[in-house]
């Protein structure tokens, strides 16, 4: 969604001569194309020319498992993020603008705080001897600490928290564009609030859900810090596996191959996102 509008405006803003695009192209070439080509080359030449790194990647149960797990975690995080973000976005959409901008500010502010700091804060909160477990045990609600860290639960909590703004922002835009009269009309026709949500609000907000959902999913695929600190080794994500392959095994060919596959998958998903969301936006006439 952002990509398509960016592309449109930058093309429209270009002066007639295409020569002025050269610096931008050079920058893209230098900082994106060159490293990607270097990565690809290393994956097919290190330690010797050939496709053995890719064969090892797809032949190894470990990497395939980590790949699948990466998609599983990204999927779970995306689903939970949508569930949490929807009510927040709806509240923001119907709030008086002055109050809305304050809540908006709070959400944005969290994005500006250092990622590592925020992840460590979750470690303190979630561990067995952490604030949440101590409070629950102190209140007598539970008798043994809940396993909230070093597992899928920990990764999901930490990542949903970090991804929330990326889901709320596109959703608010879509929800604000929905005419509140449609909901009132539904009520007048006898629809229950749930029925109105299911048949009017949800379908009309789908473009926002799709845009935010794909963005969160794509971003989650390559995430490193949060899953590495809050997850366990049995739900390791690909980025951590790549770091391990490079740092501990010193097998850069294999690491490059894994990184390249991740990049291709991410780019493909991003392309789908542009196409899907772009088409819906213009076609939906919202």
């Amino acid at each position, binding site marked *: 969604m952002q990509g398509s509008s960016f592309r449109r405006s930058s093309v429209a803003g270009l002066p007639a001569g295409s020569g002025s695009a050269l610096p931008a192209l050079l920058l893209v070439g230098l900082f994106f194309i060159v490293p990607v080509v270097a990565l690809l080359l290393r994956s097919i030449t290190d330690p010797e020319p050939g496709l053995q790194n890719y064969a090892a990647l797809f032949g*190894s*149960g*470990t990497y395939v*498992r*980590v790949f699948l*797990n990466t998609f599983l975690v990204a999927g779970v995080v995306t689903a939970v993020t949508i569930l949490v973000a929807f009510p927040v976005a709806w509240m923001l959409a119907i709030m008086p603008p002055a109050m809305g901008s304050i809540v908006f500010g709070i959400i944005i502010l969290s994005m500006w705080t250092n990622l590592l700091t925020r992840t460590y804060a979750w470690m303190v909160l979630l*561990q*067995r*001897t952490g604030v949440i477990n101590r409070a629950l045990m102190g209140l007598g609600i539970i008798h043994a600490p809940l396993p909230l860290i*070093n597992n899928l639960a920990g990764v999901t909590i930490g990542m949903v928290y970090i991804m929330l703004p990326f889901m709320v922002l596109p959703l608010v835009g879509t929800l604000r564009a929905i005419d509140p009269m449609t909901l009132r009309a539904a009520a007048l026709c006898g629809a229950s609030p749930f029925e109105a949500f299911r048949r009017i609000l949800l379908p009309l907000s789908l473009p926002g859900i799709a845009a935010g959902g794909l963005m969160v999913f794509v971003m989650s695929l390559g995430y490193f810090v949060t899953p590495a600190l809050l997850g366990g*080794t*049995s739900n*390791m994500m690909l980025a951590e*596996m790549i*770091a*391990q392959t*490079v*740092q*501990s*095994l*010193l*097998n*850069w060919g294999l690491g490059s191959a894994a990184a390249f596959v991740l990049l291709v998958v991410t780019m493909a998903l991003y392309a789908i996102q542009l196409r899907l969301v772009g088409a819906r936006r213009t076609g939906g006439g919202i």
Partner: protein
Amino acid sequence: MKLILTGLLAGLLAATAAKADEMAFTSWGGTTQEAQTKSWAAPFEASSGIKVLQDGPTDYGKLKAMVDAGNVTWDVVDVEMDFAIKAAKDGLLEPIDYAVVPKADLDPRFSNDHAVGSFYYSFVLAWNKGAVPGEPAGWADMFDTKKFPGKRTFYKWSAPGVIEIALLADGVPADKLYPLDLDRAFKKLDTIKSDIVWWGGGAESQQLIASGEAAFGQLWNGRVFALQQDGTDVGVAWNQNLTAADVLVVPRGAKNKGSAMKFLAAATSPAGQAKFAEASGYAPINTKAKAEMPADAVKALPDAHVDGQINLDMNYWAAHRDEIATRWYAWQTK
């Protein structure tokens, strides 16, 4: 404009010139690197006039990247012995200049052509006294979840230690550990897999034990020593303590090789080793160092516990590092 450029250029030249009497030392951070800074870098700066910049933590991938790219910004790096042997074979290290570094008093187990001992440590069983009922006596207790329920913490990376601990706990005699029976080790580790919390660095291991997040675990003895110094109520079992060494290496193409060798001479001197051992609880690799230490400090060292002490086989690990690591990470992610 021209003036600004000239000024910038002069500034750059001055910066490069200043670098001639600077060097970078990289270690593992936390209480260990603090002790190294205090015991080695500070006196060395005072006596030689060479400024020692601190960096870290040690990262083998970064070291290789620097050497491969021909842009080495680390001059002396503290690494594990098995890595040093492998790295020397792969051409990542400069040879040690023993004309500058006096070799006579160095324990020959811990120095070779491309590495000189930094200190040696023991992996010990440590526990939070408030979180564990009774006293675990050895590695077998780490695998006995009935007698000692709760989380236990182990070193996360593929390195000498955990495999040996699993085999010892499974009843393999200490002198029959090598070659390592990986199948047997992983089978034993499977029995407690869901109770393991991994630590990736020394500071993390201290935090896990101190907070009781993990009731007990495998820690470097110096990290336990530091916890006790801070007044944390930590127990330690020296039975079957596993020794291995850290060594200091100079990456190939290091910019300040001359200064690096002088630094190595100071770090491995009897005085440097004695000071570091006293501050860290890790054992000196200079055989003359203990004579310069207070008797109390000597008692805290791993070599006060030679009964039941087991030496990890660094040469075996250097030769089988990749093969073990592949299986290690495959098992971890399962």
